[in-house]
C-alpha cells in the first residue's frame, strides 16, 4: 500500500493521521511529485487536512523532546524523496512506543532522521556563513542563494536578530521565494526577475557606489590572510566546497 501526499508538511502529518485511522498494515509514503503509479500496487491519495495535521503535530510534541521536533522538521526541509517515508515511519514508530524511543539509534528511521537533520543543519550553517550581502542603491542588503535544501525558514531568525538595523533580502533562486526584513518583520516575497538583466545578482548599476570598494577591500584581506607556506588546497576545498564559491565575494575574480 502506498500513500501519496502533496509534498507539504501538513500533508505529511495528515498521512500519519490517516494511517492510524485506517489501520492499514504495511504502508509506504511518497510525494505526489515523484510518485509513478505501478500497475499492481494499491495507493491512496491523502487529502491534506490542517486539523488532522495539527493533532499529529501536537501529539509528536508531547512524545519527543524538542531537539527531535527540530530534527523532524529539518528532515522534512531536506526535500529528499526517501526522507518523507522515513519521517512517516518514524512518526508511527514514536506513537507506537513508550516515550524516549527517539534515542534508539539502533532503529533505522531514527538514524535516518538524525542524518538528514545533520545535513540540513550543516547547509543552514553554511548559508549563515557564506551569504554575502551587496548593498543596493535603494539601501537594501541583497543576496541570492540556491541552497541544496530548503533552509530559508531556518535562517530567518539568525539574520533578523543580527542585522536588526538594516533592510535585507535573502532570495532562494531555486525555490523562487525570498525573505525580506523591513526593519520590523520578516516577510516572504517573490521577485519577478524577468525584467532584470541578471537573475543571479542585482544589476550592478543598482548597487550602492561604495559596494565595489568594500568588495575589493575584502578580496585584498582574504589574500593577505593566507600564509603561502601553509598552502593546503584539499583542506580548503573540504571546508568550502566548490559549489559554494559562487556566493563568495572573495572567490570572484576582480
Amino acid at each position: 500500500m502506498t500513500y501519496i501526499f502533496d509534498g507539504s508538511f501538513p500533508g505529511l502529518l495528515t498521512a500519519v493521521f490517516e494511517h492510524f485511522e485506517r489501520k492499514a498494515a504495511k504502508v509506504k509514503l511518497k510525494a505526489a511529485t515523484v510518485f509513478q503509479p505501478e500497475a499492481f500496487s494499491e495507493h491512496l491519495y491523502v487529502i491534506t487536512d490542517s486539523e488532522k495535521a495539527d493533532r499529529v503535530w501536537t501529539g509528536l510534541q508531547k512524545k519527543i523532546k524538542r531537539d527531535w521536533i527540530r530534527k523532524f522538521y529539518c528532515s522534512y526541509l531536506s526535500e529528499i524523496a526517501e526522507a518523507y517515508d522515513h519521517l512517516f515511519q518514524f512518526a508511527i514508530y514514536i506513537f507506537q512506543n513508550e516515550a524516549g524511543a527517539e534515542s534508539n539509534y539502533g532503529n533505522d528511521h531514527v538514524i535516518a532522521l538524525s542524518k538528514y537533520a545533520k545535513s540540513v543543519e550543516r547547509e543552514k550553517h553554511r548559508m549563515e556563513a557564506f551569504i554575502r550581502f551587496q548593498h543596493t542603491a535603494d539601501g537594501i542588503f541583497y543576496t541570492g542563494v540556491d541552497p541544496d535544501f530548503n533552509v530559508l525558514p531556518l535562517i530567518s531568525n539568525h539574520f533578523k536578530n543580527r542585522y536588526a538595523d538594516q533592510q535585507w533580502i535573502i532570495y532562494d533562486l531555486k525555490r523562487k521565494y525570498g525573505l525580506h526584513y523591513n526593519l520590523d518583520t520578516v516577510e516572504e516575497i517573490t521577485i519577478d526577475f524577468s525584467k532584470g538583466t541578471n537573475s543571479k545578482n542585482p544589476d550592478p548599476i543598482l548597487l550602492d557606489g561604495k559596494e565595489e570598494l568594500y568588495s575589493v577591500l575584502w578580496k585584498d584581506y582574504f589574500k593577505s590572510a593566507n600564509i603561502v607556506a601553509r598552502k593546503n588546497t584539499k583542506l580548503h576545498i573540504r571546508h568550502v566546497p566548490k559549489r559554494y564559491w559562487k556566493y563568495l565575494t572573495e572567490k570572484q575574480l576582480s
Partner: protein
Amino acid sequence: MQFDRIREKLNILADAAKYDVSCSSSGSTRKNEGKGLGNSHTSGICHTYTEDGRCVSLLKILLTNHCIYDCLFCVSRKSNDVKRAAFSVDEVVELTMNFYRRNYIEGLFLSSGIFKNADFTMERLLLVCKKLRLEQNYNGYIHLKTIPGASDELIKEAGLYADRMSINLEMPTEAGLKLLAPEKSHNDVIKPLSFVQQNIKQFAADKKLIKHVPKFVPAGQSTQMVIGATPESDKDIMYTANTFYKNFSLKRVYYSGYVPISNDSRMPVLGTQPPLLRENRLYQTDWLMRFYGFKVQEILNDANPNLDVDIDPKLSWAIRNMQHFPIDINKADYKMILRIPGIGVMSAQKIVQARKFGKLRIDQLKKIGVAYNRAKHFITCADSPYQLKDYQGTQIKAFILADSQSKYIKTDSNQLILF
C-alpha cells in the same frame, strides 16, 4: 576614506596579523539589544577559509606594525625591514562595520605592535572598542589583544567591551622565550592573564547578587605558543598548555607552527616547511585533554616525550595500554567508550543511548558513525566474531596502518584531519 591608502594599509596590517592563529568567534552570548548591529553566535561562525585551510571568522588586523621591541620570531620587530603603517581609530571602526554588514565576518580581532609604550597602545585599542560599542551600537564579536605592561585600569576597562582577550606566551618555555626575545618573560603574560581572570570571577560573583552587571570578557581568554622555532619537546609544550588551562581557566591554547620569516642562526632557516603535522598532533592532544577525559601525563611522559608521527595520540595511547581492551560496547562506562580509537564524542553518546534498547550489533555501530575498521581491534559487541588470539599493540598498529594506507602514510603536511 582615501581608497588606495586604505587598501595599502589593510594589506600591510592584515599580513602582519595573520601569524596569530586564533580565529575563534565562539563562546560569547552578546545579544543585539536595542536594534543595533550584530550579536554573537555561541558556537561561532567561520565565514570563509583561506587557501591554507584556516578559518576566517574575524577581521584580524594590527592597529599598527610599528614596534619598539625586537622579538626575533616576529615580522613586525623593530629591526625587520618591512613597510610600516598605522590605521586611525575611525578607519578600523568603518572597516569593521562595513565588513560586518555584508556578512563577511563575525567581528574584529584587533592587535597591535607596541608604539611609544604599552599604555599608549592599549588606549588606542580601547578607543576602537568603545567607538564600536557605544557610538555604532555594534554587538558583534571583539577579540582584543592585551598589551603586556598596560595598566590595570586600561585592561579592566577593555574587558567591559571585548568578548575575548588574549595574550601570547609565544615560546612554550621561559628558556625558549629568553633565547629569541631577551626583553620578554612569561611573567609579562602571567600577570595580565591572572588579572583578567580575577576580574572575570569577580563579575560572575557580583552577578549572583546584583541584577545588572555588565559583561566582562564573556568569551574568556586564550593564548598562543609558536611551535618549532625553539627545541622544546611535545611534552614541554603540552605540559605548559595544561598548566595554563588549569591556572588561568583559558578557553583555548593555540599552537602555531613556526613559519620562517628571516635567517638567524637561532631559528629554522627561511624556506623550512612549517611543522604542520606536528601542530596537528598537538591539537589532537589538546582535544583529548579537553573533551575526552585524558590527563596530559597519560599521553606524554618521560618515556614518551614526543607524539607519534604516523598515528594519532588516541591510537598511540590505546596500543600502549592494551590491558584495557577489548571494551564491551554494551556494558562499558561512557568514559571508557570515549577512549576507543575510531569512536568520537557524538558516536559515544549515541551508543550509550541506543544500547538501552537492546545489545548493539556491528551494522548498527557502523550506522551510528563508528569507524569500525579501526574500532574493531578494541571492542566487543553483540555479534563480534570470536577472537582466537590476542594481538599485541604493535600488530594492531600494523593492521590499522595497512588498512588506512592512503590516510596515514600519505599524511604529509598537506592532509590534516583531526580524528
